[in-house]
C-alpha cells in the first residue's frame, strides 16, 4: 500500500476492484465504512460476484473475470476525453509531457519490438527522446503527438464504451456510473483510492491490471495524497515483511536485485542496478544502491566481507539472465526431476499452487522435504494423499513443529508498511520452536559439516553470521532485528555528527558503500534509534496531523513515512492541494506533516527543489512504463483460458509475453464447449488461504465446513442443479466434487453478444482435514502466470459443472 | 386396621392397588409439579436434593401414573363414570347434603355423583396430563406452538385435578369418617354403607353378590 489502513477513511471515492475487502480484510473495510459514515465516501465494488463487500457498498457492478484492463482502459479513455484529469499534477508529476522516440508504435495488440519466437519484447523503442544534456524532452502543453499524453490518448481511444461493455459484460450505464463517480476525484481537493488484492494479481495480465489503475491514479492526481494511493490489500500476516525481505527468486532483502550470470563482478552489478539521471532536479534515490547492497553483504558476512573479496559478491548465487525461478517454475523443475530437496515453511502448495495435481506429482519426485508448520497439511503429508501409494514414494519427509505467532517475539509488517513488534505470551507446546530457530540450527549444522568435510563453494556458508541466539540458546528475534536495521561497523562522522562503532544506523541515508556499515535490509534502517531503542514497539497514540498517521505507533518503512510519495500532495510550491487534508506543507524552509519523501524543497525551486517521485530515475510518476514485460501501456488480452476465441480488441488473444509450461500435465482448454463456464477462485472470511491453519479450528470450520461452488440461479436451473446438491467441477486438468451453492449473486454476462456464465470456488479446502471437506480447487487452475511476476492465473479459467448422483 | 366381622367388602385387592398407585403418584406429581410451577414452592425440591431431581421424580412418577390411570379407568368406569338419572341429578341439586343440611339426600349407588365427577375429572384431565406431560418431556420433537398449548393444558389439568383431589382426600378421611378403610382394607361398616351407598348395598344384597367379612360364602350362592 502506498497509504495505510486508517487513511482509507479520508477517500472521497473508493473503487474496490479485484478485492473482496469486507470478507478478506474486515477491519480494513471498517475504515472504508467509517469514511462512508463520516465523510460521505462513495464505495464502489466491481467484481464478478456480489459479495459481502458489495452488500455494503453504494453499488456493485459485475464484471467478467479477466477483463479489468478493458474496464479501466475505458476509464482512462473517459478521463482523457472528458478532461477529468488533474492537469497541474499530470504536467508536473508524471511523464505525460515526455516525448517518446518516433519509432515507438502500437499495432493490432502488439507494441514495437516484439520477438514472436522468444515471446519477448526488446525495449529499444520504449524510450524517451533526450536533449543534449541527456534529459528527457518534454512538452508541458501535452500536445506533441509523440508525448506520452497523446500516445496514451490514442492508445486508449480504442476502449470505447461499446467495446468495453461488450468485452466486460458490464452495461454502458454501469460503466458510465463508475467512470463519472471515480473520475470526480481528479480535483485537488478530492481523493480517490483503489483497493485491490488477489483479484488483480491472479491474472496473466495481473501486473498490468494494477499498472492501469496506477495510471488512472496519476491522471487524477491521487498518488501521494491523503485518501488516495494504490492500495494492495495484502492477505497474509507478514506478506509485506516477507516480501520486503524478499523470499523471492529475483530479489534480495530490500528489493535489491538478485545478481545474474552476466554480472560477474560487483562493479558490473552495481553499475547495472544503480540508475542514473542527468536531470539535477531528480533525486533518483536509487543512486544510493551501492550503499544498500554493500551494507547488505556486510550484514551477511560481517568482517569476512571485504573490498578485496567484493564483499562476498562472487560467493552469491547468480540467476541465468532473464530466467524466472518462481513457484510455478520450481514445481515444473521438480516435476521434471531437477529439484531434489524442498523447504516448505508455513505454506501448503499442494493446495495453494495452480494445477495442484502436477504439484502433488512433482512432490513425489523429491528426495527430501522439510516442512515447518503449526499444523500438518496436504504438502507435508503428500505421500498419503489421494491416489498416492506411500510404498512407492521415496521422499524423506520432515515435519518440524513451529511456535505459533503468540508464542514468539518478533515483528510483523502490515500492508500499510507498519512494522509492529509482538511479544511472546506463552511457551510453545511440546518441542515446537520458532522457524527462525530452526533455520539457525540448520545453517549451523550445515556450517559444521562444511567446516569438517569441506565441499563446494563453502565460503558463503562458513562465513555467514548466524549468532542470532540468546543466552539460553533460543532464537533472538531482537538480535536479528538489530542486524536487519544495521550497525556502524566503525566510528563514522556524518555531517559532523559522530556515530560510534556498534551503534545502530538511524536511517538508510547513513549507510555507506565502503563496508563501514551493515544493514540486513536498508528499508528497515531506522527501526531502531541510534541508541538501540526498538521503534517497532512504540505504542504512542498522538496524531499531530489529525489524519490518523499515528507516527508514534509502531514504525513504518521507509523512515517512518506513513504515506508514500507524499510530496506529490502539494503543488510545485509545496502548498497542499487539499487544505482540508493537509498531509504535508512546505513552510519555506522545511516540510511539516508526515515524514516527507526527502527533505528537499518543492520542485518550483529550480536550485534546490526536487521532483516528488524520488525512487524513479526521472523523478516523476510513469504513465509510460517501459519496465513492464508486455508494453509501456496496458492492453486488454483475454485470460489464457477464455470463453472467447478472439480478442475483441486485436488479433493478439493472450498476453504476448506469457511464459507457458508444456509438460504432459499442463493441459489447457480455451473457448471450448467441454469447459464452457468461466471460473474464478477466492477465499472467505472464515478461512485463510489454503485453510491450512483455519480448517483445524472448529469455530471457523463450523461456519464454512466444506468446499463449494457458487453458481448463478440461471445456470443452476439450466443444469438442473439444486442448492446444496453435490456437483462435479472439472477443467482440462482435473475435477473436484463439492457442494453447489445456488445464488442470486452470480449473474450471467453478455459478452460479444453471447451469454457467458461464471462460477466461483473458495480455495480454502484440502483432502487432509476435514476428511469430508472436499479437495483443493487448484486441481482445476492452470499453471500459467503473469508475464512480469509469474503470479498464477487463478482468477479466470474455464470449467464445466455437472450434477453428480452419489449413492446414499 | 383389621376388618371386623360383618363389615362389607367394597373394594378388592387389585382395585386398592390401583387406587393407591394412582393416589400416591398423583400426590407426588402434584407436589413435585407444584415445586416446579411456583418459585415459592421450590423448597419442595429440598428433600430430593434440588429441582433437577424434582424434575426427574416428576417425570418418572408420571410413568407410574400412566398405567395406574389406565387401570383405574378400566376398573371404575362402569361404576363411576355413568350417571344414574334421575337420582344423581337430584343428588347434585342438593349437593348430596354435604354443603347444607338436607333431611334425606337422594340415595346413591356405589359412588355418588360427586365421586363420579371426581373420577371423570381425574380420568379426562389425567389423560390430558399424560399426553401434555409426555410432549413436554420431549418438547424438541414438537412444534413450539404445540408444546405451548401442552404447557397450558398441563396447568389447566392441575387447576382442575388438585381441588377435586383435595376434596376427595378430605371426604375420604376426616370429612366422612369410616370411608378410609374402604380403600385400605376394602371393608366398611354396614352403617357407613347404608349412609353412603344405600342403593348399591341394596342392589348387591338383591343380587346376592355382597361379600361380608367373616361369612363363609358370598351371600349370592344362597339364591
Amino acid at each position, binding site marked *: 500500500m502506498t497509504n495505510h489502513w486508517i487513511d482509507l477513511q479520508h477517500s472521497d471515492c473508493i473503487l474496490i476492484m479485484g478485492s473482496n475487502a469486507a470478507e478478506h480484510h474486515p477491519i480494513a473495510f471498517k475504515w472504508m465504512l467509517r469514511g462512508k459514515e463520516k465523510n460521505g465516501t462513495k464505495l464502489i465494488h466491481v467484481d464478478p460476484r456480489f459479495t459481502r463487500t458489495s452488500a455494503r457498498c453504494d453499488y456493485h457492478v459485475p464484471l467478467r473475470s479477466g477483463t479489468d484492463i478493458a474496464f479501466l482502459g475505458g476509464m482512462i479513455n473517459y478521463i482523457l476525453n472528458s478532461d477529468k484529469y488533474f492537469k497541474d499534477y499530470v504536467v508536473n508529476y508524471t511523464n505525460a509531457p515526455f516525448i517518446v522516440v518516433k519509432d515507438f508504435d502500437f499495432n493490432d495488440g502488439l507494441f514495437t519490438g516484439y520477438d514472436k519466437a522468444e515471446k519477448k519484447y526488446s525495449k529499444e523503442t520504449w524510450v524517451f527522446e533526450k536533449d543534449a544534456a541527456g534529459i528527457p524532452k518534454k512538452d508541458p502543453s501535452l500536445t506533441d503527438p509523440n508525448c506520452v499524453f497523446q500516445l496514451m490518448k490514442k492508445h486508449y481511444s480504442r476502449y470505447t464504451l461499446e467495446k468495453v461493455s461488450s468485452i466486460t459484460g458490464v452495461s454502458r450505464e454501469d460503466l458510465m456510473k463508475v467512470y463519472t463517480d471515480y473520475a470526480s476525484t481528479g480535483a485537488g481537493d478530492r481523493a480517490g483510492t483503489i483497493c485491490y488484492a488477489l483479484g488483480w494479481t491472479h491474472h496473466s495480465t495481473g501486473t498490468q491490471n494494477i499498472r492501469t489503475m496506477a495510471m488512472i491514479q496519476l491522471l487524477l492526481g491521487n498518488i501521494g495524497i491523503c485518501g488516495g494511493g494504490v492500495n494492495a490489500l495484502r492477505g497474509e500476516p507478514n506478506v509485506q515483511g516477507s516480501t520486503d525481505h524478499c523470499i523471492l527468486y529475483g530479489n534480495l532483502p530490500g528489493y535489491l536485485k538478485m545478481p545474474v550470470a552476466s554480472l560477474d563482478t560487483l562493479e558490473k552489478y552495481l553499475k547495472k542496478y544503480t540508475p542514473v539521471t542527468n536531470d539535477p532536479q531528480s533525486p533518483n534515490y536509487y543512486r544510493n544502491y551501492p550503499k544498500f547492497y554493500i551494507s547488505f553483504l556486510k550484514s551477511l558476512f560481517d568482517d569476512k566481507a571485504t573490498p578485496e573479496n567484493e564483499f562476498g559478491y562472487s560467493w552469491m548465487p547468480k540467476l541465468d539472465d532473464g530466467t524466472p525461478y518462481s513457484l510455478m517454475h520450481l514445481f515444473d523443475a521438480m516435476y521434471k526431476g531437477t529439484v531434489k530437496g524442498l523447504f516448505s515453511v508455513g505454506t501448503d502448495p499442494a493446495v495453494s499452487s495452480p494445477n495442484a495435481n502436477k504439484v502433488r506429482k512433482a512432490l513425489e519426485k523429491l528426495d527430501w522435504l522439510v516442512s515447518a508448520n503449526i499444523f500438518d497439511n496436504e504438502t507435508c503429508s503428500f505421500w498419503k494423499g489421494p491416489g498416492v501409494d506411500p510404498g512407492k514414494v521415496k521422499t524423506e519427509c520432515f515435519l518440524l513443529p513451529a511456535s505459533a505467532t503468540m508464542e514468539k517475539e518478533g515483528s510483523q509488517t502490515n500492508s500499510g508498511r507498519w512494522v509492529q513488534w509482538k511479544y511472546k505470551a506463552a511457551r510453545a507446546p511440546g518441542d515446537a520452536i520458532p522457524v527462525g530457530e530452526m533455520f539457525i540450527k540448520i545453517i549451523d549444522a550445515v556450517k559444521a559439516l562444511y567446516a569438517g568435510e569441506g565441499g563446494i563453494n563453502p565460503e558463503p556458508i562458513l562465513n555467514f553470521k548466524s549468532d542470532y541466539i540468546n543466552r539460553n540458546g533460543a532464537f533472538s528475534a531482537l538480535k536479528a532485528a538489530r542486524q536487519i536495521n544495521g550497525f556502524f561497523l566503525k566510528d563514522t562522522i556524518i555531517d559532523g555528527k559522530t556515530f560510534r562503532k556498534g551503534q545502530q544506523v538511524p536511517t538508510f541515508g547513513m549507510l555507506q558503500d565502503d563496508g563501514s556499515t551493515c544493514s540486513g535490509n536498508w528499508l528497515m534502517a531506522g527501526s531502531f534509534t541510534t541508541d538501540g531503542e526498538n521503534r517497532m514497539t512504540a505504542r504512542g497514540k498522538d496524531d499531530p496531523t489529525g489524519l490518523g498517521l499515528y507516527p508514534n505507533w509502531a514504525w513504518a518503512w521507509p523512515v517512518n513515512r506513513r504515506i508514500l510519495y507524499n510530496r506529490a500532495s502539494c503543488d510545485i510550491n509545496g502548498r497542499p492541494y487539499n487544505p482540508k487534508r493537509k498531509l504535508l506543507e512546505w513552510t519555506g524552509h522545511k516540510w511539516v506533516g508526515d515524514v516527507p519523501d526527502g527533505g528537499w524543497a518543492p520542485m518550483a525551486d529550480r536550485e534546490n527543489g526536487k521532483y516528488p517521485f524520488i525512487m524513479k530515475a526521472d523523478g516523476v510518476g510513469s504513465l509510460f512504463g517501459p519496465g513492464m514485460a508486455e508494453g509501456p501501456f496496458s492492453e486488454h488480452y483475454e485470460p489464457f483460458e477464455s470463453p472467447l476465441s478472439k480478442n475483441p480488441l486485436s488479433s493478439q488473444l493472450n498476453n504476448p509475453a506469457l511464459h507457458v509450461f508444456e509438460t504432459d500435465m499442463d493441459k489447457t482448454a480455451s473457448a471450448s464447449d467441454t469447459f464452457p463456464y468461466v471460473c474464478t477462485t477466492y477465499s472467505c472470511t472464515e478461512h485463510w488461504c489454503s485453510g491450512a491453519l483455519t480448517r483445524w479450528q472448529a469455530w471457523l470450520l463450523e461456519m464454512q465446513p466444506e468446499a463449494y461452488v457458487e453458481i448463478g440461479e440461471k445456470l443452476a436451473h439450466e443444469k438442473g442443479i439444486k442448492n446444496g446438491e453435490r456437483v462435479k467441477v472439472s477443467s482440462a486438468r482435473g475435477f473436484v466434487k463439492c457442494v453447489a451453492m445456488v445464488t442470486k449473486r452470480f449473474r450471467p454476462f453478455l459478452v460479444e453478444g453471447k451469454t457467458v456464465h461464471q462460477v466461483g470456488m473458495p480455495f480454502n479446502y484440502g483432502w487432509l482435514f476435514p476428511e469430508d471437506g472436499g479437495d483443493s480447487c487448484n486441481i482445476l487452475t492452470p499453471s500459467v502466470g503473469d508475464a512480469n511476476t509469474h503470479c498464477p492465473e487463478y482468477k479466470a479459467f474455464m470449467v464445466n459443472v455437472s450434477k453428480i448422483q452419489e449413492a446414499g | 386396621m383389621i376388618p371386623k366381622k360383618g363389615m362389607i367388602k367394597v373394594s378388592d385387592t387389585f382395585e386398592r392397588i390401583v387406587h393407591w398407585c394412582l393416589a400416591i403418584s398423583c400426590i407426588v406429581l402434584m407436589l413435585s409439579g407444584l415445586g416446579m410451577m411456583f418459585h415459592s414452592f421450590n423448597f419442595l425440591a429440598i428433600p430430593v436434593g434440588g429441582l433437577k431431581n424434582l424434575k426427574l421424580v416428576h417425570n418418572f412418577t408420571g410413568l407410574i401414573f400412566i398405567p395406574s390411570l389406565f387401570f383405574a379407568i378400566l376398573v371404575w368406569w362402569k361404576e363411576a363414570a355413568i350417571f344414574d338419572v334421575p337420582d344423581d341429578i337430584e343428588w347434585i341439586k342438593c349437593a348430596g347434603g354435604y354443603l347444607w343440611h338436607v333431611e334425606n339426600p337422594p340415595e346413591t349407588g356405589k359412588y355418588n355423583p360427586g365421586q363420579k365427577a371426581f373420577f371423570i375429572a381425574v380420568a379426562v384431565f389425567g389423560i390430558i396430563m399424560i399426553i401434555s406431560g409426555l410432549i413436554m418431556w420431549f418438547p424438541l420433537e414438537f412444534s413450539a406452538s404445540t408444546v405451548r398449548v401442552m404447557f*397450558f393444558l398441563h396447568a389447566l389439568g392441575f387447576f382442575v385435578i388438585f*381441588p377435586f383431589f383435595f376434596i376427595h382426600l378430605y371426604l375420604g378421611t376426616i370429612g366422612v369418617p369410616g370411608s378410609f378403610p374402604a380403600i385400605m382394607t376394602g371393608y366398611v361398616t354396614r352403617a357407613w354403607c347404608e349412609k353412603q351407598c344405600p342403593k348399591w348395598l341394596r342392589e348387591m344384597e338383591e343380587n346376592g353378590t355382597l361379600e*361380608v367379612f367373616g361369612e363363609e360364602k358370598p351371600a349370592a350362592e344362597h339364591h
Partner: protein
Amino acid sequence: MNKNELVKLIDTTKCTACRGCQVACKQWNEMPGLKTRNWGSYQNPPELGWNTWTLVRFQEYVDSKGILKWLFRKEGCMHCTDAACVKVCPSNALYRTEFGTIGLHASLCIGCKECITACPFDVPKYNPHTDTILKCDLCYDRLKGGELPACVKSCPTGALSIGKKEVMIENAYTRAKELGGDANVYGDTFVGGTHVLYVLGEKPEVYENLPARPAVPLTIVAWKDWFKPLSLIAAGGVLIGSFFHYITHGPKDTGGNSDQTCKGGGE
C-alpha cells in the same frame, strides 16, 4: 425507570457478516464449534444452538426495485422486558439482571425446556450434555467487569453498540431516519421493549425467522398470568373450604366409627 438498563443496538445496515461476533461469543463463553455441513448457505450453523448463542443470518433478497441485496442479521437473545422465558422458568435459572437483560444461572437450570417453547424468538437452546439450556446473557460477567459484551467488542463496523436504553433508542431512530425508505427500528415496542434493538434496512416481514409482531404467547400469558394465580386460589380455596366445612358442617355421620356389628346381608 432502572437507570442501569442497557440496550444493545444491532444496526443490520452496517453489518458485513464478518461473523467476528459469532466467534468472539464462543471464545469468551468457551463454547465448542461443532460438526456442520455446507447446506448451500454461508449461514452456518444453520440455526442458533446450545453452542451458538449468536448467529449471523444470510439472506439474498431482491427488493421491489429489482435491486439485489444480501441481508445480514445477527440473531440472538433479544433480552425482552416482558420475558416469556423468565415467566416460565421454574427454577429461577433465567432471571432479569440489574441491566434489564436476561441472565442465566446455568447451575439452576433443570433442563425442563419450557423457555424454549415460550420464547417468541426461538432463542434458548438445550444442551443435552449438561441437561441445561444455554443462551446469550449479554456477557453478564463482562458487563459486571465494566467490559463490553464479547460480540460488541469484536464488531469492526459499529453494527453492534451498547449503551443506556434511552440513548440507544434515540440512536436507533436517528439512524433509521437517516437511512430512510423502509428502514425501521425493531424491538422497542413489543414484549415490553427488548434490550436488543435492531435497525433494519427492510421491513421486518422481509427477514427470515424474525417475527414481525412478537409477543409472549397467549397460552403462556393464560397459564402464567391467569391460571397460576387462579390455581393457587382454587387450591387454597379447597383447603380453606375443607377446613371450614369440617369445623362448621362437621364430618358426615356415617356411623362408620360405631362399634355396632354389621348386619347380615339382605333385610
